């Protein structure tokens, strides 16, 4: 096992595009680090630079403390799982899994034993004589995993390995990949555009946008304390509702269009820097799951016109409109929300509607004006100019 250190790494393509800008990241020994971000954010480029498949323009990549910038992929002791699996179509499953070992001139008996062990672990024992073309997507994905596992490398690199699977299989394989990684304890760098995958699998998650690291933290911390509007909007499904607001001079409330949202003392305790924004513009973020149908007028509330109600069985997604201006969120239109297709179709940030995730038993009708209660201490505040979260000090 080994650590992976990415130190001030930049990648500039010959056409001048700066895909990665001064990225610094450390993946601890045995950790599963997820790189997440919208398409084109540079996450795959980072992975390929670690693998040695892409030249590094500046900075250093270290694997196990050794600088590997000029080391060929085969000498880095890494194993990579690709989005399209990249199985050798002319070889059987067993040959695919054992190919890396064969190239290392291991005795045939040892190769066979390791292939069998990996196949048993992945439930592939009965398919060993088949060719990849005769397997389902899930089975091919397992073969790709087997090919990586069997070599016992220092580092696993996984490039969206589940994105070609259907939704149900993806959820199943997500758990399997996590389980195998934890069982083997191999340092893993995992790339995905799916924030749900990132949240459920990663020990830590690094969020990238346009080649720049936005935040790297454990999943819950990303959700609870996003560093900026992009992370806040990207993590969570449906995406966080973002409004342009104006703090009242006395700091007890914030104006969202014609409505006033009370700010509780808890919010000020958690965000002392908010006091400096009295009378200034801020961006207010409210997660859909922190909005419910109001049963009393205590606490902060918002009133909106219900535009659409989507029943998901266990809950309702209520799309409603306010007269407050929605804040611009960079990369919001490509937010990777995959588990909630309904929410994808009508994204609050792109439709101009807000979204509330309420209990399925809530009586709510389209075209009615409804009152929504907000969890008092769970509003997020961001600097209107920089988009940085307002927490302890000046952003």
């Amino acid at each position, binding site marked *: 096992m080994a650590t992976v250190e990415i130190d001030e790494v930049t990648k500039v393509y010959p056409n001048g595009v700066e895909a990665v800008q001064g990225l610094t990241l450390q993946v601890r020994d045995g950790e599963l680090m997820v790189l997440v971000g919208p398409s084109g954010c540079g996450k795959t480029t980072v992975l390929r630079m670690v*693998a*040695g*498949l892409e030249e590094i323009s500046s900075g250093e990549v270290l694997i196990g403390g050794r600088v590997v910038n000029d080391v*060929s*992929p*085969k000498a880095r002791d*890494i*194993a*990579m799982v*690709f*989005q*399209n699996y*990249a*199985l*050798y*179509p*002319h070889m059987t499953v067993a040959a695919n899994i054992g*190919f*890396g070992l064969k*190239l*290392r001139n291991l005795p045939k008996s040892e190769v066979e034993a390791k292939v069998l062990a990996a196949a048993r672990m992945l439930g592939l024992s009965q398919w060993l004589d088949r060719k990849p073309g005769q397997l389902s997507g899930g089975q091919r994905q397992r073969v790709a995993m087997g*090919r990586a596992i069997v*070599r016992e490398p220092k580092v696993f690199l996984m490039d969206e390995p589940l994105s070609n699977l259907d939704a149900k299989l993806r959820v199943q394989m997500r758990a399997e990949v996590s389980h195998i990684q934890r069982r083997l304890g191999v340092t893993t760098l995992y790339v995905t555009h799916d924030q749900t995958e990132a949240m459920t699998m990663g020990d830590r998650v690094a969020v990238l946008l346009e080649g720049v690291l936005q935040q790297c933290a454990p999943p819950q911390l990303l959700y609870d304390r996003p560093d900026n509007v992009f992370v806040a909007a990207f993590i969570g499904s449906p995406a966080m509702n973002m409004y342009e607001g104006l703090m009242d001079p006395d700091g007890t409330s914030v104006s969202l269009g014609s409505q006033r949202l009370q700010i509780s003392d808890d919010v000020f305790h958690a965000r002392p820097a908010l006091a400096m924004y009295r009378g200034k513009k801020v961006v207010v973020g409210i997660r859909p799951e922190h909005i419910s149908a109001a049963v009393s007028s205590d606490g902060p509330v918002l009133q909106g016109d219900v535009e659409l109600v989507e029943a998901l069985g266990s809950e309702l997604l209520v799309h409603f409109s306010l007269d407050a201006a929605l804040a611009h969120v960079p990369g919001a239109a490509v937010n990777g929300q995959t588990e909630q297709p309904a929410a994808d179709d009508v994204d609050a940030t792109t439709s101009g509607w807000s979204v509330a995730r309420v209990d399925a038993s809530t009586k709510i009708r389209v075209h009615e004006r409804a009152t929504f209660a907000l969890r008092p201490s769970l509003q997020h505040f961001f600097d209107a100019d920089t988009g940085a979260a307002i927490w302890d000090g000046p952003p």
Partner: protein
Amino acid sequence: MGDGTMTPGSSGLAAVSPAGSAIRRQARRRPTLARRIRRDPGAIGMFLALLVISIVMLYPFAFMIINSLRTESQYLNGSGFSTSSWGALFSSLPVGAELLNSTLICAGAIAIILIGSSAAGFAFAKLRYRRQNVVFLGIIGSMMIPVQSIIIPEYVNLANAGLVNNYLSPILVYSALGMPFATFLMTVFFRGLPDELIEAALCDGMGYFGVFWRVAVRMAGPALATVTVLQFIQIWDDLLVALLLLQEPANRTITVGLGVLSSGRAVSIPALMAGSLISAIPAIIVYLFFQRYLVSGLTMGVSR
């Protein structure tokens, strides 16, 4: 919903009843010509066109086979059959030796073309280097140079190298002539291979030569078969290069032998037809052997 309620015995399995499978069998059966024409009257024009093309294509074969089984007088009369022309052919031409010469030259040239074009195609498709496109365009452009315009300088070069009347000379010339198209074909094929496959092999522990030899070439069956068939037909049928470079009777190819046979003062058409038939058989065998790869090889790059 009430409409969707299933009663016992009325499950979806009912679709697998004997009547159902009979319907499916009928649907699977290829429609007859009459049914196709009834369904699409315009198809009759297509069938007629294909029929005419088939006759045009097959007529020379029929002519060759029929007339190879006639004597000179039977050929002139247009009736009767005899195998004497085959005896005349074998007595006037060293057919076996010429077939062997043709085979050796074809095999040598095709081996060089396959090795060179697959390596070049892989490099053009999967490696990146400066002026790559210019070099590729140069090679593709050389396909447009007619062999007649360079054959004399080539002859002079080979004569200076002392290679005239040596099998190596036509092998080298055919390789040079066939290489550009073969390289183009192999490049198109290798461009269709996913880059991830190459990268997976690099991560697995191979160098670029290993990736080429152990992964790319193993998957290039259709492309290699296509190159083999097309080059075989071209080289086997060629007269000019072999006629010029192999002047000793012992070195002649079958095509040159037939050329000599047809240039005599008294030409025996039945013997010539018998020789042509023998000459055509290897090409037909090669085509049939690689047929299943040929279509996929020829349509490479059409879709990915």
